[in-house]
């Protein structure tokens, strides 16, 4: 009954297609890029080819990886705090309609205000540069988790709620055994969106903080390389940013899949669907 679908690491045709088709496109585009750069003789300070970028990535791995670590730390911490606070606030909303009605508009304001616009203020107000980066990344990562989890907590099957009422379940039991499990897929979907957003928030804040800050994340490397016209290094840093974003997304997708695969439609293989 509970066998895994045979899709692990692309054992099926569908799996291989999913893996190889995008890979093939990527290789083709990179090859074309390299070819044009060489054929046209475009100088590296205008557009470096993929080979040069890869070489720079290896050569400058020391400072780049140090910067990556800084950005990653801010991103992960911001995501953790966003997840914790988002979940906690959503639970509070689910317990009290008044609290939800009074606080939700402010959460929306927090979400719709462009982070680029408020980042300078936060950086001025908060002395500690790492803390200000953290706050910026948190602001953008917070809302999707809060909003998704709130919807999830309110999506409880009303018959199941009646059942819990019939058995005189306490508020706590309803929350813990019914509302939170119902909200789980919603929370995880929010987390996946917020993972990418936290990274963007951290990068944007680093850009705004500029080279003046003591922290030296990936955005700082990009700015610095731009000033020094070290365009290959700029691209290398950019590659790292994208790779980090992809890695975060994949990690959170995997976590979501592992948590939901036994029961939720979204995490089921095609063959398993009834």
């Amino acid at each position, binding site marked *: 009954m*509970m066998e895994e679908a045979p899709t692990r690491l692309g054992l099926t045709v569908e799996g291989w297609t999913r893996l190889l088709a995008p890979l093939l496109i990527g290789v083709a585009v990179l090859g074309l890029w390299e070819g044009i750069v060489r054929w046209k003789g475009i100088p590296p300070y205008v557009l470096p080819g993929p080979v040069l970028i890869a070489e720079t990535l290896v050569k400058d791995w020391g400072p780049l990886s140090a910067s990556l670590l800084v950005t990653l730390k801010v991103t992960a911490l911001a995501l953790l705090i966003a997840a914790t606070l988002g979940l906690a606030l959503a639970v509070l909303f689910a317990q009290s309609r008044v609290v939800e009605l009074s606080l939700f508009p402010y959460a929306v304001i927090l979400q719709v205000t462009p982070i680029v616009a408020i980042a300078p203020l936060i950086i001025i107000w908060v002395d500690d540069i790492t803390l200000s980066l953290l706050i910026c990344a948190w602001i953008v990562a917070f809302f999707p988790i809060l909003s998704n989890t709130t919807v999830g907590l309110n999506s409880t099957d009303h*018959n199941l709620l009646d059942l819990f009422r*019939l*058995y005189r379940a306490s508020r706590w039991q309803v929350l813990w055994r019914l509302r939170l499990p119902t909200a789980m897929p919603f929370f995880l979907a929010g987390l996946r969106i917020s993972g990418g957003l936290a990274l963007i928030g951290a990068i944007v804040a680093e850009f705004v903080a500029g080279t003046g800050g003591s922290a030296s994340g990936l955005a700082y490397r990009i700015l610095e390389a731009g000033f020094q016209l070290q365009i290959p290094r700029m691209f290398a840093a950019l590659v790292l940013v994208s790779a980090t974003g992809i890695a975060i997304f994949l990690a959170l997708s995997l976590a979501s899949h592992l948590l939901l695969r036994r029961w939720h439609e979204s995490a089921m293989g095609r063959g398993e669907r009834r």
Partner: protein
Amino acid sequence: MDQGDSARALVTLAGVAKRYATGTLALRDVSLAIGEGGFLALLGPSGCGKSTLLRMIAGLVAPSQGDISWPGGAAASRDIGFVFQEPTLMPWATALANVALPLELAGMPRREAEARAAAMLARVELKGFEKAYPRALSGGMRMRVSIARALVTRPRLLLMDEPFAALDEITRFRLNNDLLDLWQEERFTVVFVTHSVFESVYLAQRIAVMAARPGRITAELPIGAPYPRGEVFRTSAAYAAQCREVSLALEAAMAARAA
């Protein structure tokens, strides 16, 4: 009254009415005695308030007027089991955890609750499916889990709201028979809501026929056939005659609405 009431009443409804906030009168002046150990069917067209009536007996909906009383003592919630039209299982929990839920909500230690739940699953012929998640089970099996969950607390009253309406006929017949077997062995009281004349006659000792707008009971008919009832009864002339009688009562109820 009828043979089902030779025993004392487990629940009595006196002049019960329900008016919704919108002003709609869902139920009007319903009086009914639910005999202990009996099998009562509430039969009526959709919109006649039979589900509302069931939820009232369960204490999930409060009547606007009238009284629901339990002569033998207060309506302890653990004395009621409820089966919804849908299996209404928690998709994130195994069959065992779903059945153990009522016991665990009442504070029973997990190990004991799961042992009882496993025994109950075996009673509904789902031994070996303890660790299965609802989505891995067929519609009929899910309904069995739902029945096991309702019975795991050993309730005195089992309330069922069109539980088999969504199942295919073969599965429904099997579940009908299994339900009757369980009822014969455990001697709990059943109130079974249905819109099927044939199902109500096959299962019940007594049928309360309801009319809609406003919902009310228009007739109470005893079904005298002895238990155990099986496929022989389902195809007998006596069964056909009873179905005809109940059909006519239902028709009269529908006509009363139109008048």
